[in-house]
């Protein structure tokens, strides 16, 4: 439905009721190998959907399946392929960060449980080295969140669920984690994020589903949603410095394809900004340049969100 690739997660008629309150209402969704975000206001049902996908909450109706297996009947084998960072992450307070990671890795992947692996995840999380062997009860909220991120990706999971992953992390740390999550995505891990912080999601996710009052209001690739809702401003940024093609070279190359743009592309210090009614063609071009990233201009997702969830009207393209 959303992507041509075979879906990794399939949700059919998923509903959840608590007493008489419908929290999730008959959701159908397919998620392929991508970075997929659930966006919506507080209490929209994002976390509940995620918990049903993890098998922690039982659906009232419907089936969530991962890798073609109903998660409710799934064995530990499927669960071991899944990493999860809960919104309110908690640990055994007397355990050290190193020992907690050792436990999680040993539950997910019996081949990776050595000290170097554990240290590489701790280092990746940015947790200060002198805290690795201290009890978790001595950690600050930010440190716990970093350890939470480390355990979610530890043990080589194939899918990682992140529920409000950047809460409790300072602004610089957020930027750092956005890059880290993108890097993990490039390594081939399917990432499912739930958040209400749209600006962060915009930088991480390929696909989004807008959830409100337990229903999916819209779900698609961000660029498709932008096009559908009349937001045709895009930007190209250089995400890797692996080859010699600079942003200026790429700008010069794009400038020759004038028919693709509604108005002339503009070169800023680190990005190219332009309007187009033909984003698919630009996607085709950019797919040959993996060092460059093509996304709707910053703030577009926020506008789409407001339009879909709050029904706010925008002048076309603004």
């Amino acid at each position, binding site marked *: 439905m959303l992507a041509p690739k075979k879906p990794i997660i399939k949700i059919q008629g998923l509903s959840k009721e608590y007493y008489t309150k419908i929290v999730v209402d008959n959701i159908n969704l397919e998620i392929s190998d991508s970075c997929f975000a659930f966006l919506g206001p507080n209490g929209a049902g994002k976390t509940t959907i995620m918990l049903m996908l993890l*098998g922690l909450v039982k659906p009232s109706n419907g089936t969530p399946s991962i890798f073609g297996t109903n998660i409710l009947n799934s064995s530990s084998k499927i*669960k071991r392929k899944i990493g*999860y960072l809960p919104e309110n992450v*908690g640990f*055994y307070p007397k355990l050290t960060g190193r020992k907690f990671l050792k436990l*999680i890795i*040993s*539950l*997910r992947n019996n081949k990776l449980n050595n000290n170097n692996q554990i240290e590489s995840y701790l280092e990746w999380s940015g947790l200060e080295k002198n805290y690795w062997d201290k009890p978790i009860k001595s950690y600050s909220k930010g440190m716990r969140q970093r350890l939470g991120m480390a355990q979610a990706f530890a043990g080589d999971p194939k899918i990682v669920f992140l529920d409000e992953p950047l809460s409790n992390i300072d602004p610089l740390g957020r930027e750092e984690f956005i890059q880290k999550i993108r890097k993990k995505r490039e390594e081939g891990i399917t990432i499912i994020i739930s958040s209400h912080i749209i600006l962060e999601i915009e930088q991480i996710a390929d696909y989004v589903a807008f959830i409100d009052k337990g229903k999916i209001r819209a779900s698609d690739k961000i660029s498709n949603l932008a096009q559908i809702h009349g937001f045709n401003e895009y930007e190209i940024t250089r995400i890797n410095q692996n080859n010699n093609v600079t942003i200026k070279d790429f700008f010069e190359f794009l400038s020759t394809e004038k028919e693709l743009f509604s108005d002339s592309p503009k070169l800023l210090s680190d990005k190219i900004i332009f309007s187009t009614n033909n984003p698919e063609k630009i996607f085709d071009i950019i797919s040959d340049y993996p060092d460059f990233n093509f996304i709707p201009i910053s703030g577009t997702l926020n506008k789409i969100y407001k339009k879909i969830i709050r029904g706010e009207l925008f002048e076309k393209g603004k």
Partner: protein
Amino acid sequence: MKKESKAQSFLFYEKHLFFFYMKKNILSVKFIVCSILVFISIFQLFNDYEYRIINSQRELDLSIFWQGFIKPSHIFLILFSAIIAADIVSGEFSNKSAMIIYATESRYKILYIKALSLIITISILALFYFSAFLILFFIKTNLLISIHFYLMGFLIILIELIIYSSLTFAISALTRSITLSFIFPVFYILIDPLLEGFELGLLSINSYTLRVIDFFEFLLFYETIDLNAITIFCMIVFFGVSLLIIPLTSYIFNQQDIRID
């Protein structure tokens, strides 16, 4: 090569989780404190022990069996086993680690591994109590209880402890509250001896235990078998109730949502 064989080792994940919970139980402050209190209770027991002239090994066995194994264990060991079991499941909900752990492994598997680690921990505590009692008794009096009476005493008390700890385990898993998991079993332990007085003997673990003890006492000390319908029922309940509580708890727990907001 070595790594490969490790990767394919049988029940790798389960063994790892089991040793994690075992270590958590044994190295916990409450287990250490309970073990020290058990040791203190044995010294207290010697002070209360009624010394009298013992003419035969049978008399000695009976004396130790009733005064050493059965009577005091009802007070301390049961309470300690409930204390050890109280936060075994609810503790993870209190510190919120449950969300990560139950997302990674099957709930049934985790609960059975926890139950097994709990039973082994309680067995270690009971073994410590029985062994320490025997050794101290031998040092003080140069007398030893017969091995089959020792084993019988140990078995009955151990099963009784498992019943109380599995009940606490069930409360811990189903209420997910450490406070309730402590309060309910302690309250039950306090009212248990009174239940029979109110004609509620069917609900009293103590009354089942006494029936079973009576049966084995007659069998081993007097070599007579007193097997009637009530005794058979009590035996089934006594030996089978834990086998019922743990799977039932796991089943109900598996039906519930795991969500900590």
